[in-house]
């Protein structure tokens, strides 16, 4: 029983991180029907942003996350303007290739400058005993930040003017333009928000896991599974998708070798696509 509780707590804490990593991907997909293949490398940039702000400029990691979020928002809007805007109405293959190219550019420059050496943020807040489990404080804070970001995003999309614009563009871009919503700017903002979420998740992960410029790729892959679980286009559903994945990763190893976990995750991925393609928590079709 103690082992189950320990694994469940670990899984949930991991799930929050997965959830926030996937939120950006699903937001961009939901608003503009673009599968952002640069999502993983943007997560990596978030990791390095925190690393350099902390080790180079001495900024406290949790302040560095706020700066990273702003930088992520701006970078996302730039990427949208340069690489995505002109082909936003083109077939999916064009946007896939464009974002994949952005991914390769970031990884190429990143590898040349930073190499693929692992980096480690020397930041430790100790551990606390929580039920049967010993939990590193940084992971607990990451879970709280993930909840706050998800809650903030929900409130922003539901109740702010810009949020309503984003939802309007998501539902029907042509109709939104007819009523005077500047869809190009809203799309750029959405891409920026998606990138911001990727950067925040990277920065949070960097507070407790070592990373390389290639590290974001693994989270991108998980983000696809989570996106489908939570409903592509439903960023808040991603948090729940992330928690489901985290719990699977926590509990499955109790019953079988850990290498079976990704097999089960992708079986679930295919099953959800077949049985409920809109995801467990709805989302746009």
């Amino acid at each position, binding site marked *: 029983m103690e082992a189950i509780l320990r694994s469940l707590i*670990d899984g949930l804490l991991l799930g929050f991180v997965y959830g926030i990593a996937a939120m950006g991907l699903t937001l961009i997909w939901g608003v503009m029907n673009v599968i952002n293949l640069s999502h993983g490398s943007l997560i990596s940039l978030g990791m390095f942003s925190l690393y350099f702000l902390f080790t180079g400029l001495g900024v406290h990691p949790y302040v560095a996350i706020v700066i990273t979020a702003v930088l992520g928002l701006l970078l996302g809007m730039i990427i949208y303007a340069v690489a995505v805007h002109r082909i936003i109405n083109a077939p999916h293959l064009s946007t896939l290739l464009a974002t994949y190219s952005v991914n390769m550019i970031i990884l190429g420059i990143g590898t040349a400058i930073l*190499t693929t050496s692992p980096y480690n943020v*020397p930041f430790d807040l100790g551990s606390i005993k929580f039920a049967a489990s010993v*939990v*590193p404080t940084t992971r607990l804070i990451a879970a709280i930040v993930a909840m706050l970001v998800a809650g903030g995003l929900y409130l922003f999309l539901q109740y702010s003017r810009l949020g309503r614009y984003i939802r309007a563009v998501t539902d029907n871009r042509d109709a939104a333009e007819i009523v005077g919503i500047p869809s190009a700017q809203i799309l750029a903002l959405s891409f920026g928000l998606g990138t911001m979420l990727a950067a925040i998740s990277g920065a949070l992960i960097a507070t407790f896991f070592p990373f390389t410029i290639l590290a974001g790729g*693994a989270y991108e892959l998980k983000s696809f599974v989570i996106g489908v679980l939570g409903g592509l286009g439903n960023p808040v559903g991603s948090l729940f998708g992330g928690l489901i994945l985290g719990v699977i990763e926590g509990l499955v190893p109790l019953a079988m070798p850990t290498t079976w976990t990704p097999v089960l995750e992708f079986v679930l991925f295919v099953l959800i696509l077949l049985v409920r393609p809109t995801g467990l928590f709805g989302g746009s079709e």
Partner: protein
Amino acid sequence: MRRTLYLLLGLLLIAGMVLAGCGGKSASSGTTGGNTGGKKEVTVTIGFTESQTGKYNVDSTAQTQGFKLWMEQVNNAGGIKLSDGTIVKFKAVSYDDESKADKVQQLYTRLATEDKADFLISPYSSGLTASAAVVSEQYGKIMLATGAASDSIFKKGYERVYQLYTPASRYLTGAVDMLKANAPDLKKVAFVYENSKFSTAVVTAAKEYAAKQGYDVVLFEGYDKDTTDFGAFINKIQDSGAEAVLGGGHFQDGSTFARQIFEKKLPIKFLALLVAPPNPKFAELGDAALGVVGPSQWEAAAAYTPDAAKAAGLTWFGPSSADFAKAYKDKYGEEAGYHAAGGYAAGVVLQKAIIDADSVDAAKVKAALDKMDLLTFFGHIKFNTSDAHGLQIGHEMVYIQWQKKDGKMVKEVVWPKEGATADLLFPLKH
């Protein structure tokens, strides 16, 4: 219109001539000879790939830097002089293999055919070396395999591939001996390792050895190479009641594993991981690195000297560990790790084989390598010449442990006892 056509034709002709020139230059490389002031000079081409990108970038770069340092030193010292007065100098041809096996096969074929490399040095890692070995054997090229500890490469009947590292089958067995010597009452051992060719081979051999020594192996499980969260494994280790953990894989996963074991205060007494602990960057983990043991192919502090060679009845060849470490630091501004030492040692072994063969002829150099039995700064070098031709049978691992002295993390050699610079810190203090 016609003028433009002529212009285009002219440009095409020029481009064709330039390309033909380049092709000719490439085809003429390989061993090149010349007369310098009455002395015959030959330039031997050594081919290899380097992982300038991809996951092996760090270790591969160190290996290449070590090898290039050797080449620069030998060439600057006037090359190798053979008995007939011939001066042998070296040049390197290398490419980026992107840490990918398919690139390695393609590039080693190019090195053997287009670049006409006389000798080959392996890429970094057992997986990539396995790919390169197929090509080197196919084209009859001698390849010195450094950065590759797998045994299986040498059980395929290859005749021209020579291993410098202690093979995987003996990589962690010393840690079991160390544990037995320091904690005879400890019985429960867990093996948690990266699912890679190298790590699996190491822990499988160590597990068999531990079982023979009377240990109870309570957990034996691999993890995916991209694993970043070891929570599930740490919980399993705790549930199994293991007192010692052995395993790991490469730097990133090993350092992450050690950090998370520390953060979750896993109640174990001994932790030995592959590859990561000997890397100076491992100390960046701070207290999480304290007490962690790691096998190393080479450490500057290890006592391999001309006197040790004399005592063991072996021939000594090459610089001392201190000379190599100083030269490396002077050139690259960083401490030499065992990957760098392995790269340099590949050059030293080739140099000694050419001297013993008194020739650069591949068959004669091969015969010299088969007979080789010497002590270098890197350790004892002797190759199997029977059932697993080329497998390293002389070299032994040294085991390091991170300890604290005057508040600073220091790397101490703790095993074997004869080469130890400090006693083992036992048990782990989390």
